[in-house]
C-alpha cells in the first residue's frame, strides 16, 4: 500500500458545506403511520421471479450505414470497444441477451444476425457474498 497521506504543509480546504453540527432533538419520536405498499402482499417487485444473470452482447460495425441496415438509426451509436476507454471508435447496435431470451423488449441480434460481436458481462459482483455473511 503506497503512502496516501497528503504532504506536510499541504493545505487542503474543507468541503465548503462542511459544518457537521449535531442536529437538535426532534419532538416527534414515533412515526404517525407505517404503511407498506408491497411487503407482505403479492405485489413484490418481481423478486421471486428473478433468475440468475445473463450475458449480453452487441454487434459492432465499421460504418453507421451497416448498423442502420440491422437496426434503426436511434439504436446505433459510436462507442469504444469493450474494455477500452479511448481510441478505436466503432459503431454499435444495442445490447441484447446472448441467449435470445429477452422477450419483446430485447432488441435482438438485428436483421443480419450476430457477426462481429462484443460481449458484456454479469456476475462481476457477488462472489464475496457467497463466501461470507453479509449483513451488519
Amino acid at each position, binding site marked *: 500500500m503506497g503512502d496516501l497521506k497528503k504532504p506536510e504543509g499541504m493545505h487542503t480546504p474543507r*468541503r465548503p458545506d462542511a459544518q457537521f453540527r449535531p442536529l437538535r432533538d426532534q419532538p416527534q419520536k414515533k412515526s404517525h403511520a407505517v404503511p407498506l405498499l408491497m411487503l407482505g402482499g403479492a405485489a413484490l417487485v418481481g423478486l421471486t421471479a428473478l433468475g440468475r444473470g445473463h450475458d449480453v452482447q*452487441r454487434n459492432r460495425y465499421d460504418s453507421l450505414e451497416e448498423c442502420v441496415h440491422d437496426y434503426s438509426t436511434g439504436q446505433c451509436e459510436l462507442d469504444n470497444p*469493450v474494455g477500452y476507454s479511448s481510441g478505436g471508435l466503432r459503431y454499435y447496435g444495442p445490447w441484447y441477451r446472448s441467449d435470445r431470451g429477452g422477450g419483446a423488449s430485447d432488441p435482438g441480434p438485428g436483421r443480419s444476425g450476430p457477426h462481429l460481436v462484443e460481449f458484456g458481462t454479469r456476475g462481476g459482483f457477488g462472489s464475496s457474498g457467497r463466501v461470507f455473511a453479509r449483513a451488519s
Partner: protein
Amino acid sequence: MRRQACTPRTDWQARLEAQGFGFHTIDGQPYWREDACYVFDAREIDDIEAATNELHALCMEAVDRVVRDGRYDDLGLDARAAALIERSWWDREPALYGRMDLVHDGSAPPRLLEYNADTPTALFEASVAQWYWLQDVAPEADQFNAIHEALVQRWRMLPPSSHVHFAACYDSSEDALTTDYLIDTCLQAGHRATALDIEQVGWSGRDFIDMDNLPIDRLFKLYPWEWMLAEPFAMHLQGSRLRWIEPAWKMVLSNKAVLPLLWEYFPGHPNLLPASRRRGDLDGPVVRKPCWGREGAGVIVLQPGEAESATSERCIYQAFSPLPSYEGRHALVGSWVVGDTAVGIGLREDDGLITRNTSCFVPHRFEG
C-alpha cells in the same frame, strides 16, 4: 432502562409473516422476542438521540479530516478506494442511512461501539415490526421510532420520479427483507424501483446495466464496499457514472479503524471509548475487533496481560465497556441515523457479552 416481561400476542408469528417478516424464528430459536420488552424513560431517549446526533457530526468531521489529510493507510484503504472516497465526498453524494451500536446503561452517557454505516440490517424489525407491536399491545405508549417516515422523506432528496435500482444478496432472507423494505419506502417517495440480485448487475463496456440491459443511474446496494473492491467489476468503478447508495465515503465510517481516529480527533469525548491500533495504548480490559468484521465475528475480549490468539485480519482495540445485563441478557442499543438525523432505536440482546447474528431483537417503548 429496564427489561420487562410481556405477554406475546397470540398470533404474533402470523402477524409478523403478514408483514413479510418470515425469519422471526431461525433454526427453531427465536430471533424476534416479544415475551419481553425494554422500557426507557424519556430522559434516556433524549440522551440517546442527542448522543447519536453528536456522534454522527463527529463522524462527518472525521471523514472530512481523513479526506483532507489522506489518512487512508490508517484505515487499510488503497489508492483505488481513496479515489472513490474523495470523488464521492467532494461531489457531496448523499447517504441514506446507518446504525450506530451504542452501550447504554442509563448511568453513563451512551458510548459508540461501532458505526454500521454501509450495510446495516435489522432495519425492518426496528422500523416496522416493533412499531406494529406497540400499536397492538400499548397504542397509547411512545417509542423512539420515526424511522419509516424519515426514510420516505430522505428518498425525496432525489429528483422527482427517479429510477433507483436495488441490489443485494437475495438468497439471504435478512438482506432481502431489508432491501425490499427500502424499495417500499423509495416507492412511497414517488420513485421507480428495480430490484436485482447483486450478481445480476452487468457491465456493458461503458455502464453498469440492469436485466433489461439499460444503464443504471442510481444503485442502492446492500453489499459492502470492501467486497466490491475485491471483485472483478472493481476495475469499472472509477470510470462509472453511477451514483451509489451508500456512497463510497461511507467506507471510512463502516471500517472499525475509524474508532482510533475518532479517539485521536476527539480525545476524551464522553460518547466515545478509548481506541487504538495498538493494544498497549489502552489500560484495562480491551476488545479486539477486526476492521471489517460483521455481526460480532472475530471480536474477542482480552483481560490485562491475557495472551491473544494470532490473527491475519487487520484489527483495532477498544476499551471494554460491557453491555448492561438484565436477567442475564446483555442489551445493545442500535441507534438509527437517516440522512444526518437520529430517528429511532432497536434493541438486540444476547446471553454473551458480544452481540452476534444469533442475538435476539426485542421491542421497546418509553414513558414519562
